[in-house]
């Protein structure tokens, strides 16, 4: 099994399927149980290293680790040595000295997780929980898990991803993972919010949302970060909403059983209207629940065993 989870592109079809199947079992092992806890990672320490604020992702990882009986340390930039100017390297060395087995890292710089995993500073397994505008692989896994629960096998399914692809790491991870799983992905965004080189991604790209919706099995709306509006990526919030927002009219043009996803937090009235967000075919709240199962699966597969051996697992001695 993988030693570090840095990019959705690192996962083969087989590995991704193993993670999703394991997440299915995690759901079955905790849903409706009197004791929602498994002893599997007892004695292991997981550090949540968050250089960027993210209550949602951090609590999801924290809950996942705690459900597996791991000890969890939350290390956030605010109020820690990081805000006093400590470098990523020194923070990593500190964590290594504390004996962390797994490090979940969120950083504003693309590649921070890769640096942490390959620098030799720490021997812990590294999980990328979002690095800059690069990737957020567990988000893609939980989206794929949610899609799979509703659509079954994702091979040849049509998934439309709408919104800020330029700044959003969710889009990149999703495109890569869904392509691995055999789905057809269409990205929809204004030209200003598409990154350079998007034509080389394994997906279709269009500027026209209305044309993409009728054939979709699922639509994933990405959050438009308000801070982007001042940077003139689009003329006004209202114009963005009119052209790229999912409202009741557009929702009705979707096939009957298509579902709506959103990684959260939502801007109601901006990229998604309130009635669509609250529709029963919107699975946004379920995505949060599924996030815990998927993260349990990843933590289990990365931390429970003896390590891959080749990379020198912590049990090597």
């Amino acid at each position, binding site marked *: 099994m993988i030693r570090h989870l840095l990019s959705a592109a690192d996962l083969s079809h087989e590995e991704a399927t193993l993670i999703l199947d394991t997440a299915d079992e995690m759901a079955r*092992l905790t849903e409706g149980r009197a004791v929602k806890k498994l002893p599997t990672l007892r004695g292991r320490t997981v550090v949540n290293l968050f250089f960027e604020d993210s209550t949602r992702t951090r609590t999801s990882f924290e809950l996942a680790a705690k459900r597996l009986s791991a000890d969890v340390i939350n290390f956030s930039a605010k109020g820690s040595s990081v805000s006093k100017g400590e470098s990523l390297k020194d923070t990593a060395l500190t964590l290594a000295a504390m004996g962390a087995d797994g490090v979940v890292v969120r950083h504003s710089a693309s590649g921070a997780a890769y640096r942490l995993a390959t620098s030799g500073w720490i021997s812990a397994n590294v999980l990328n929980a979002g690095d800059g505008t690069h990737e957020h692989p567990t988000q893609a896994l939980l989206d794929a898990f949610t899609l799979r629960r509703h659509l079954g096998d994702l091979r040849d399914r049509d998934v439309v991803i709408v919104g800020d692809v330029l700044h959003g790491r969710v889009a990149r991870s999703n495109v890569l993972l869904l392509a691995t799983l055999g789905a057809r992905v269409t990205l929809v965004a204004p030209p200003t919010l598409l990154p350079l080189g998007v034509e080389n991604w394994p997906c279709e790209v269009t500027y026209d949302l209305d044309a993409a919706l009728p054939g979709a099995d699922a639509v994933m709306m990405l959050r438009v970060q308000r801070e982007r509006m001042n940077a003139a990526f689009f003329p006004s919030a209202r114009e963005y909403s009119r052209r790229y927002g999912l409202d009741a009219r557009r929702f009705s043009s979707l096939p009957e059983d298509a579902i709506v996803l959103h990684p959260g937090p939502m801007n109601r009235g901006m990229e998604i209207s309130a009635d669509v967000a609250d529709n029963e075919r919107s699975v946004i709240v379920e995505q949060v629940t599924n996030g815990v199962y998927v993260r349990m699966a990843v933590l289990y597969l990365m931390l429970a065993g003896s390590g891959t051996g080749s990379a020198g697992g912590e049990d090597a001695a």
Partner: protein
Amino acid sequence: MSRHLSGFRTVLSEDEINRALARMAHEVVERNKGASGLVVLGIPSRGVPLAQRLTARISSVEDIAVPVGALDVTMYRDDLRLRPARALEPTDIPDGGVDGKTVVLVDDVLYSGRTIRAALTALDDVGRPRAVRLAVLVDRGHRELPIRADHVGKNLPTSLRESVRVLLNEVDGQDAVLVGATADAHPAPEAHLAAGEEEAR
């Protein structure tokens, strides 16, 4: 009759497995004074089809439907750290749960007892059964924990160098219990555990 694996000899044929299961079904019912309040849980992988066969026989003897399911113990094993993480097998607790019921755990081979220890811990998190009993097709001895089976298909004295293979129609396309001297391809969870020691010899 059985596919011949080199170095393996057949110790239970298809007919003998069926007779053993029939006797075990009667034993379970006798011990429980009927089939009410029973829940049968198989331990993956080969414990699950065995549990289904045992349950079908119990149900036909007593003419009531007995709930049957599966209990994966991977997350509760004591040797997780000794080898790479493995894929989980399905856990399926029947509706109605296990609270206040008599749970019959079913596995193919009883060996070190560590799988059953893990199963008992797993059962703790599912609920609180009134009693837990253990039915195994083969008891090959060499216990490492104070655990014994209530219902045994066949007691099979073995040496530590031997390996026991249970083949079932549902999984392997034929029914047979084989014993051989080779150390590879241990089908039973207990055998997996001891395999590490054996292979390290």
